[in-house]
């Protein structure tokens, strides 16, 4: 919701001149980054997961990062890519929520609206040649309807029953498509968690910028719940049987 804005007579209010931002800046590469986010629809709503790592190139720098956040009471946001750009988006969404609170008219921003706002910001930044170097996964329940969408640094958007960013698109998406597609309204929570963990395990084995510590989140009619970090069990004994490239 806009702050209260109205068109004053032209004798009083001139159209706004474009502000001077100082030197022009263009993002050229991400610095501190998060890897895949995966999400899918299940019986009670949306389930999403992301690991707790923010890498500094090949250094596993920040190992307790939150890459999942709630927006209001009905929307869940997952992010991969540059973390400072994510923090900027967090501030923007925070002021959006503050405006909603100030409006105090009983209306709440639905998931669809949050999705549209983020999409507009992302595309406008790309058009200026100064993108927010992220891929967002936005999920939630709008009047009982499950919604799950994706926006990236180009401003490309799409909605699907299963979404995965980064490496997840290569490694997890095939698993998600096989196991979730067509069964979004039947998948129980237990099975959903199991699918999620399986995908995150594969990602930990094969994505060199991932971490074994992850968070899981769900949106249901009861609201948004983001879990505490937990570890997945992995088995590396196969490594001993590898021959070639060393002893």
């Amino acid at each position: 919701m806009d702050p209260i804005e109205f068109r004053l007579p032209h004798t009083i209010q001139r159209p706004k001149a474009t502000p001077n931002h100082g030197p022009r800046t263009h993002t050229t590469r991400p610095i501190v980054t998060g890897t895949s986010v995966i999400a899918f629809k299940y019986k009670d709503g949306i389930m999403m997961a992301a690991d707790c790592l923010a890498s500094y190139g090949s250094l596993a720098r920040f190992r307790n990062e939150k890459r999942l956040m709630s927006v209001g009471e009905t929307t869940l946001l997952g992010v991969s890519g540059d973390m400072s750009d994510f923090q900027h988006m967090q501030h923007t969404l925070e002021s959006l929520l503050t405006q909603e609170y100030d409006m105090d008219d009983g209306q709440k921003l639905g998931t669809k609206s949050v999705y549209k706002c983020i999409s507009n910001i992302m595309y406008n930044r790309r058009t200026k040649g100064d993108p927010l170097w992220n891929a967002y996964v936005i999920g939630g329940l709008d009047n009982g309807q499950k919604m799950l969408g994706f926006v990236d640094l180009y401003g490309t958007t799409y909605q699907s029953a299963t979404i995965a960013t980064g490496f997840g698109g290569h490694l997890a998406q095939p698993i998600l498509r096989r196991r979730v597609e067509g069964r979004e309204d039947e998948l129980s929570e237990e099975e959903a968690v199991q699918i999620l963990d399986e995908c995150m395990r594969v990602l930990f084995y094969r994505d060199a910028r991932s971490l074994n510590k992850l968070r899981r989140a769900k949106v249901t009619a009861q609201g948004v719940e983001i879990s505490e970090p937990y570890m997945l069990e992995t088995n590396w004994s196969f490594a001993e049987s590898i021959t070639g490239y060393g002893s």
Partner: protein
Amino acid sequence: MARRYDSRTTIFSPEGRLYQVEYAMEAISHAGTVIGVLSKDGIVLAAERQATSNLLEQSLDNEKIYEMNDNVVAGVAGHAADANTLINQSRAIAQRYLLKYDSPMPVEQLVRRLCDMKQGYTQYGGLRPFGVSFLCAGWDSTFGFQLYQSDPAGNYSSWKAACIGENYSNAQSILKQEYKDEEKEEAGPNVRTVGSQMTMDDALKLTCQVLSKTIDTAKLSSKKLEFATITLKAGKPFIHVYTSTEIDEVLKKYESVIKPADSQ
């Protein structure tokens, strides 16, 4: 004496009045009546046209009732040209909201933006206020059907039944008498539901009844009227602006409540 304080809207009179705003409202009280009635299944808006001529191309001529949005329809009373500007502004405001939030604009927010603009013209710029009052009938998913009345001062309020334009006080008292209403408190935060006992049928009937008592002509006809309803179809708001044939059908259906010409 009052003349010295008239010409600039930014000035209060010694008695604390804004004469320009009051004169604007005076202009509206000579304009064609618009009536709105809220029912639990929808809202009825009816208006009396003042420009009538056999030469008017009625099907293309919207004088009183305009669609603002997919979920809001409004009836205007007052200066037609002023009304047109405000209608255009509101339509643009509603579309900008849709573009930004991919969701239809909540009715009250649209009304509020419109009223903030009208208020600006009573305080800044030395320009005269808009000589228009609105009856906005709309639906949104949070509060359901709502009917708002707004005036040149920029005030707005929500009504179960309201009337603006000529004979509005007469109409208002009849509406007050005849409106079937039962307040029901619904549990939950931010729910201001008012349980109306009126059905759409009741609302149409009441509207015809009130119209017949406030309009000066001997017999109500589709030539003199504009009619619209907003209801829900498949869970989505549906605005129906009636054609003259449809208006005639409505008048025929409720002719029992329409005061016959002889007993006027």
